[in-house]
């Protein structure tokens, strides 16, 4: 019989090990941009997004909002914008603040405004959400809300788990950006 993942005892062992490791891990306080989950992004995926240029990436979250206080491991999220910038670049989008673009005529030039970013825990699961206002970088261009959400088992609230979860949410956001920039949009 073929299995897509570990068997039950494998999951149990993985959970137990994660829990034990978590007990030895110092309280996490920040996101690490270097840990942004980019392993699943192929060169082809990056090329497919290279026609999109982010002219502005702004933070308009509620003042003092935390990223999470999940299970006693608070993350302030003060470095979230750095994480986003790194993660979006890693997915092939170009960003004005990090790259100089001389010719944008063949690009979909957008502005992104971060409205919400958070991770919550419920039962044994965690859910991460990233919500943006997106608009074309043109005068009086209408804004649209795009949302990325990812829910999965919360094994031990580790930093890597949190980064992977946020990375999956960002994947959904990037899909939303691609749809927004599609020719029929």
């Amino acid at each position, binding site marked *: 019989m073929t299995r897509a993942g570990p068997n*039950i005892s494998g*999951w*149990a062992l993985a*959970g137990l090990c994660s829990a034990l490791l978590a007990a030895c891990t110092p*309280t996490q306080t920040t996101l690490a941009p270097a840990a942004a989950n980019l392993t699943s992004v192929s060169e082809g995926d990056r090329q497919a997004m290279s026609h999109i240029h982010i002219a502005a990436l702004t933070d308009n*979250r*509620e*003042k*003092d*909002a*935390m990223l999470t*206080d999940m299970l*006693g491991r*608070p993350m*302030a999220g003060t470095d979230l914008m750095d994480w986003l910038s790194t993660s979006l670049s890693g997915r092939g989008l170009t960003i004005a603040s990090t790259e100089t673009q001389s010719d944008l005529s063949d690009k979909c030039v957008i502005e992104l405004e971060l*409205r*919400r*970013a*958070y991770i*919550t825990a*419920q*039962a*044994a*699961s965690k*859910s991460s*959400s990233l*919500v943006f206002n997106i608009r074309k970088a043109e005068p009086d261009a209408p804004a649209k*809300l795009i*949302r990325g*959400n990812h*829910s*999965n*088992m919360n094994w031990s609230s580790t930093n890597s788990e949190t980064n992977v979860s946020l990375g999956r949410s960002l994947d959904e956001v990037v899909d939303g950006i691609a749809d927004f920039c599609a020719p029929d949009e």
Partner: protein
Amino acid sequence: MRNFLAVLVALSLGACATPSFRHIEPDARAKLTSMESVLIVTQSEIGAEINTSKASVATGGGIVGALIESGINNARTKTAEELVAPIRDIMIDFDFGATLEQELEAELAALNIANAQEVTLLRGLEAGTPNTMIEQSGASAVLFINSTYNLSAEFDEMVATAVVALYPVSENLYPYKEKVDADNKRAELSDNIYRNTFRVTQPLSDLDKKEENAAALAERPASELTGPLSEAAKILARAIAADMQIDAAE
């Protein structure tokens, strides 16, 4: 009013079981000359409750039962998150924390305790923050109100909750703690001189399935979602202020 009564009835029923609340003792109230009020709302958007599985109980416990239960709950969380997303989009400009803060500022004035109505809103809570706030407060006591707001598991009600506890700062209030001590951990639950929990619901939709309720809510204008939640905040604030005016029975 109906929901306010539901809260009071729930509180009264609570008195029949293990005490789930503590009212302020009259002698303590006399020494409560000033109060700092802290509202904690860590949610950035409305949540969605789920009916948590009891599979581990049904299977006799053990790690296999726990894993099955976790898997079921995870699937239910995913479904709830998908259903609530368009409702969150509609409510994106509504600030529950600020709304409840305003309602509390209006209602806590009735306590006639200096500064009680000056509410500080915290949207995040670092470990140790309550202890530090108590240590640094110049008031007689610090009131913490930890509030959540969600759609019910069937997406038929708006649910707002608050866990409320009052911690002494002045040493002359220490004898009225639930468990008298004078250690440095000043925000342990047993350090309270008042505590209670509140749950307010507002009806939203009465269709048969949660998917139908969610779809109906996703078609509504923002005011038909934020209105009931604002009302829940008002009822919650009123209930907290009213409950804090009740003296503990001798």
